[in-house]
């Protein structure tokens, strides 16, 4: 199997791409930080999938006589102001976090990628208009813009995610454009045009795939920020609707207890830090592996 994967003369498309992933995976696994990242994110995914089996209690079940209990054997992370088990809430909250992460990655990265690639590839007025738009979005405060969108779209976690996604794409557009510029005059692009390929084909089949690896790196690194933006919305009371166990909203609600019942805000805070770190580690590791410029450096 190993030999099949690392063969430098693969016999099929499948083997070639499997080999590519295998090699990248191998490199990734040799990077300790990246391994930590993979483990943390793996943990997040497993937790999200198996939340009902892991969580000892319901995330919304209230018990007003068990309010604000400190961490103990019964309640590993204590209980919150409505007597809910924080551990169970954190476990269920991983689903929301995962959804935020996934949806933003699915919405804003491709959006930024396409806008940036089109802008960079065509240049001229297209570029000026698209980049002007990007600049406008970029120069608006992120959280404020997200807030405005949430306010406009109405509360709810889906809307919060859409709002975050809308604020996140300009950075990706910038990167994609910069990258596109570096090879829009490359000979392989000229060669493809000479074969009669249309602009769209070149952008989607040739330009975009080249931007994706740095985009993946960037997206994983930005995930921390995105989770925090979501938490910020929660902090300001928007975003998830109660009683959803969204981590940011949990911290937000727990912050008045921070001096006397530190665990209410701190436990979801630690969860955020852990997952953010996981993405950062993974992103850093991916950068080492995927980014040809820094390949081979630790």
């Amino acid at each position, binding site marked *: 199997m190993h030999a099949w994967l690392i063969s430098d003369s693969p016999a099929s498309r499948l083997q070639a791409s499997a080999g590519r992933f295998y090699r990248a995976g191998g490199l990734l696994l040799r990077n300790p930080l990246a391994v930590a990242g993979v483990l943390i994110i793996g943990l997040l995914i497993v937790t999200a999938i198996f939340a009902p089996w892991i969580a000892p209690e319901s995330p*919304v*079940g*209230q018990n*007003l*006589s068990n*309010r*604000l209990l400190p961490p103990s054997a019964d309640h590993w992370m204590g209980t919150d*102001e*409505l*007597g809910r088990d924080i551990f169970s809430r954190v476990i269920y909250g991983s689903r929301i976090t995962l959804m935020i992460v996934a949806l933003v990655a699915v919405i804003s990265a491709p959006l930024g990628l396409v806008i940036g690639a089109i802008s960079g590839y065509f240049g001229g007025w297209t570029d000026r208009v698209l980049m002007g738009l990007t600049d406008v979005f970029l120069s608006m405060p992120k959280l404020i813009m997200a807030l405005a969108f949430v*306010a406009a779209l*109405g*509360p709810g976690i889906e809307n919060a995610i859409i709002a975050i996604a809308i604020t996140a794409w300009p950075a990706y557009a910038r990167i994609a454009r910069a990258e596109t510029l570096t090879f829009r005059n490359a000979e392989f692009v000229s060669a493809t045009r000479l074969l009669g390929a249309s602009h769209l084909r070149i952008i989607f089949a040739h330009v975009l795939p080249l931007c994706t690896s740095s985009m993946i790196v960037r997206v994983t690194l930005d995930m921390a920020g995105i989770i925090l933006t979501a938490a910020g919305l929660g902090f300001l*009371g*928007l975003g998830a*609707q*109660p*009683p959803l166990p969204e981590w940011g909203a949990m911290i937000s*609600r727990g*912050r*008045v*207890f*921070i*001096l*006397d*019942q530190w665990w209410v805000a701190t436990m979801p805070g630690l969860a955020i830090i852990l997952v953010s770190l996981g993405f950062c580690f993974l992103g850093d590791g991916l950068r080492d592996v995927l980014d040809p410029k820094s390949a081979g450096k630790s």
Partner: protein
Amino acid sequence: ETPPNLLVVAQNIDDIVAIDPAQAYEFTSGELVTNIYDRLVQYDAEDPTVLAAGLASDWETDAEAKTVTFTLRDGATFHSGNPVRPEDVTGSLARVIKLDLTPAFILAQLGWTPENVDEMITAEGNTITVKYDGDFSPAFVLNVLASRPASIVDMETVMANEVDGDMGNGWLNENSAGSGPFELQTFRPAELVRLKANPDYFKGAPAMEGVILQHVAEAATQQLLLEQGDVDMARNLTPDQIAGIDSDEIKVEAFPQAAVHFLSFNQKNDALTDPAVWEAARYLVDYSGMVDSFLAGQMEIHQAFWPKGFPGALEDTPYSYDPEKAEQILEEAGVELPITVELDVINAAPFTDMAQSLQASFADAGINFEILPGTGAQVITKYRERTHAAMLLYWGPDFMDPHSNAKAFAYNSDNSDENYQATTTWRNAWAVPDELNEKTMAALSEPDADARLDQYIELQQAVQEESPIVIMFQAAYQVAMDDDVSGYVNGATSDFVFYRLVEKD
């Protein structure tokens, strides 16, 4: 540590929009107006439940002639040094009507309009005659004249600062021109208010040389400041924080408030029009569960629209959490379940917690709330437009007369969309039965004080029994302060917060 002659208060003051008494309509600005200005008659620091003499030393009511005659106190002066003249009184009251900003409606109830106000309020020598138009109990009239917009401003100074015919409104929103115990020294929105004592106050100079309200939005930060001794008083701590305070140097004082908290159902939503649903709802609120936990000390169970502690309040609390009973009611009435509706709530403590508790207890009976948290402005916008379904909100009287709340909870003579009213009834599209409407108007004009109070009790009972409004709690206000602070008076509304008697030792 704070200086001995200065009271430093940590408080969330970002609600202030205007501090001109003719415009001020927020909680914090109400406090400022109270401490900076005087009214002819006022509820005062010594006992905020008793109507006392203000700038008027004496007054006489004449229900027949629909007039009240005030005799102006001798020797009262404004902060500017100008004496308080009868022209200031007439001018100030007329100014409110002519500017017609939000609180003007309180005075306008007396039948005053920009056209007639100069005739309705007249001065002669040392007396001021106030006429009103309508069948009002004199008690009601005096309560109106003790309200915030009836504050007397230094007309000479104010008119000197008039810009574009605004009667000094712009200037008064950044400065003060009153005769009260304190003078405004600095006001920076969402940052700081600094009050300076008025040494010549006619009831004696305040003990403190100054009061500083420092804007601190975070409750946890307020707690830290108080514990560090960097402020003398923290105004926005939560019950849990208060319960957690174990320092000997900090004491907590509780003040019952006039605001009542309720859950209401918009009658434009078909699922919520069945009186059985209203009734079942009364048994689905975990009153004591909430009051004993996260609302501890912050709210009391109260199920009528006029707050207890005030004459005319209905203090019965016939309903308690009883899901079986609720289910039975719903079943007997054949209500189609489950009902799923949105519940709008202000996204701040303790409202979201209350909403979650309601959500949990109502769910047992098949009424599912989808909680929609929003900013205060967002929630009110929706409420005004009557597009909500269920609403968790509170109501504080505009002035301390039962009519203020009766009108809001038991009166709605025209439920049409065009007839916008800021009342709980209209906003929930509840067409109040005619009988109730008539009773409300009758109570307003009842000249006999005791009979009048009885009528209000009846009104409260009616609303308690059958209305789409479930009144649950009456607020209390807990203020944590340094142990050596004494004399802080906090009445039932923000209009009754007094710093005049505060001392530190």
